[in-house]
C-alpha cells in the first residue's frame, strides 16, 4: 500500500473517532440534563473510551461474555455515564436506555454495575479496586496462553488509594504485558489533586515499579490511537498511559467540576458547545 492513501485512511479514522468522542460527550451531557452525574470525569475520558471501543478492544456486542474478548475495567466507576454511552453506541444496548439514568429498574447504574449492564465486566465504584482485578484477569489469560488483553482506566485522584500500588507492584513482578493501565490524569478530584495529595512525579512512580510508561495528551485522538496500538510498549512489562486531560472537557463552563447537573439553559449551552 502506498503512503498517501494510507495517510488518508488514517486521517479518516481519526476524524471518525473524534466524532465518536463528540457523540459520547453529547450523550453524557444529555444524561446530566436529566439527573445528577459525575459529568467532569466522564467527559475527561471520552476520547480514550472512543478509541478503546471503536478501535482497540476486541469485542462482540451480541455476546458480551465471549471468552475471546479484551477485558475493560473502569476503575473510576463513578464516571460510568461515558462508558454507558460508548457501550450503547457500540450496540450492547439501545441508546434510549441512556435516558433512564438513575431511574427505577434502569439497566444502567450510578456506578458501573456488571450485574445490570451488558458489556460491563466488573462492578466498580469504590476506588482502588479495578487494577488488582485487572491483574488477576491478566494472570488468568496467561494461564490460558491466550492473546486477550486487559485495559483498566483509572482516575488520578484514585491513585491516592494504596491498594493501587500493591497491584502496580504485582503486575510488574508477574511480567503482565497483556495488562494496560490508562490514567485519566484530569488533575482534579473534588479539588485540585496536587494540592490535596501530591502524585507527581507520577510517571516516575510507575516506571520505578517496573512499568513501561508513556505520557500523552488524552484529548489528542491520533496520539491515543498510536499509543494504544503499540501495546505492549515492552515485552514482559505492563504498560501504562498517563493521559493528560481536562476535567469536564468539551463543556467550558464546568471545567474542573466533579459533579454537574444541567438546567435547561445550561443543557442548551453545553450541547451548543458540542455542536449538537
Amino acid at each position, binding site marked *: 500500500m502506498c503512503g498517501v492513501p494510507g495517510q488518508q485512511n488514517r486521517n479518516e479514522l481519526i476524524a471518525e473517532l473524534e466524532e465518536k468522542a463528540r457523540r459520547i460527550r453529547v450523550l453524557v451531557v444529555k444524561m446530566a440534563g436529566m439527573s445528577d452525574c459525575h459529568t467532569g470525569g466522564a467527559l475527561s475520558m471520552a476520547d480514550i473510551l472512543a478509541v478503546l471501543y471503536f478501535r482497540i478492544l476486541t469485542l462482540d456486542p451480541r455476546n458480551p461474555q465471549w471468552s475471546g474478548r479484551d477485558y475493560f475495567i473502569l476503575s473510576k466507576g463513578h464516571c460510568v455515564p461515558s462508558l454507558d454511552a460508548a457501550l450503547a453506541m457500540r450496540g450492547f444496548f439501545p441508546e434510549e436506555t441512556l435516558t433512564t439514568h438513575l431511574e427505577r429498574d434502569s439497566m444502567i447504574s450510578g456506578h458501573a454495575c456488571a450485574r445490570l449492564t451488558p458489556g460491563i465486566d*466488573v462492578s466498580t465504584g469504590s476506588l482502588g479496586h479495578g487494577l*488488582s*482485578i485487572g491483574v*488477576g*484477569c491478566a*494472570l488468568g*489469560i496467561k494461564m490460558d496462553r491466550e492473546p486477550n488483553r486487559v485495559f483498566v482506566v483509572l482516575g488520578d485522584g484514585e491513585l491516592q488509594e494504596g491498594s493501587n500500588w*500493591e497491584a502496580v507492584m504485582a503486575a510488574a513482578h508477574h511480567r503482565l504485558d497483556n495488562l494496560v493501565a490508562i490514567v485519566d490524569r484530569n488533575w482534579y478530584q473534588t479539588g485540585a489533586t496536587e494540592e490535596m495529595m501530591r502524585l507527581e512525579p507520577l510517571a516516575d512512580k510507575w516506571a520505578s515499579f517496573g512499568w513501561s510508561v508513556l505520557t500523552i495528551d488524552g484529548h489528542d485522538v491520533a496520539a491515543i490511537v498510536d499509543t494504544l496500538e503499540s501495546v505492549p510498549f515492552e515485552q514482559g512489562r505492563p504498560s501504562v498511559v498517563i493521559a493528560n486531560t481536562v476535567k469536564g472537557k468539551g463543556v467550558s463552563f464546568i471545567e474542573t467540576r466533579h459533579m454537574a447537573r444541567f438546567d435547561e439553559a445550561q443543557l442548551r449551552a453545553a450541547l451548543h458547545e458540542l455542536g449538537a
Partner: protein
Amino acid sequence: MAKPFARVLLELADADPRVCAVSCDCRGFIAPLAEQFPQRAIEIGIAEQNLIGIAAGLAVRGKIPFAIGMNPFVTMRCFEQVRTDLGYGARNVKVIGAYGGGVVYGGWGCTHHAIEEMALMRLIPTMTVVMPADAWETEQAVRAAAIREGPFYISLARGAAVVEQPEEARSFELGKAVLLREGDAATIIGVGPTVADALRAGDLLESQGIAARILEMHTVKPIDREAILRAAEETPVIVTIEEHTVIGGLGGAVAEVLAEAGAGTPLKRIGLQDVFAVMSGSQQDLKSRYGITAEAVVKEILHPSGAGAHHKDTKNTKLRGVP
C-alpha cells in the same frame, strides 16, 4: 492444616484446570500445586487487598481461585474487597483463613486473633462460611467449596482430630450440623476448635448421669435451622461455644434462628463477651481466663446465669436431682 489443604488443592487442580490459588505469603499452602502447575500457583506477597482483587480478576476470567491469607488479615484488611469484589461481584472465589481462627494464636496477641471472622464473613450476602474442626473435615470443606458456585470462606482448622468417630462413619454436608452425641438434657453447639470443648463438656455431664446433645456447626452460614429448632424443641437449653466474639458469630446466628422462630428456649452464648483477649499465654490459657471452657458449658447447664435463668423452661426436669 497446610498439608491436608495443599493436598486437596492439588487434587482439585488436577481434576479441573480452572482451579488455581493465590497466596498472601502462605507459600506452604500452595507448594505442591506450584510444583505441578507453576502458572496456577500465584504468590503475591503481603498484600491482602491485592490478594482478593487478583482472585476476583481470575474469577472474571472463569477460574476458580483459592485466595489464601492469615485469618484476621484476610477477613479484615481487605473486608471491602471481599464484600464488594467477591460478594457484590458474585465471584466464584474461595477465601481461605490459613492459620486458624479465633484465639488460636494465644499469647501472640490480639492482632493475630480472628475473633470477628465469623461475624464479618457472615455479613456478606451470598457468602458461605465454614469452620472445620479437624484435618478430615478440612479436606471435605475444601472439596465442597470448589463445587459450590459463589464466594466461600473457610477458617482452616488447626490441631489434631477432635471428632471421635472413625472416618468412614463421618459425613460432611454443607449447611448440615453434625450430630456428635445424642442427648435430651441440653444441647451444646461447638464450631472449629471448640468442638473439643463441647465434647469434653459432654463427658463431664455424662459422669453425672446427664446426656447432652452435641452438635458441630461447621457451616455457620447458611446455618442448619432445622437442627437448631429440633434442639430447641427436644432439649430444654442450648449452649453455644466459640472462640470468637459472641456478637454475630455462631452464638449470634443461633440466637437469630431461635428468636425468629419464637422458640423461647434459653440460650447461653459462650465466647468472648465483647472484649479482646488481652493476655500472655497459650490458647488454653486465654480460653480459661475468658471462660471459653467445657467447665463453663457445664456450669451454664447445671446452674444457668442471666435472664435465661428465670425463664419457665429452666425448670429442667431432665436435671432433677442434680445439686
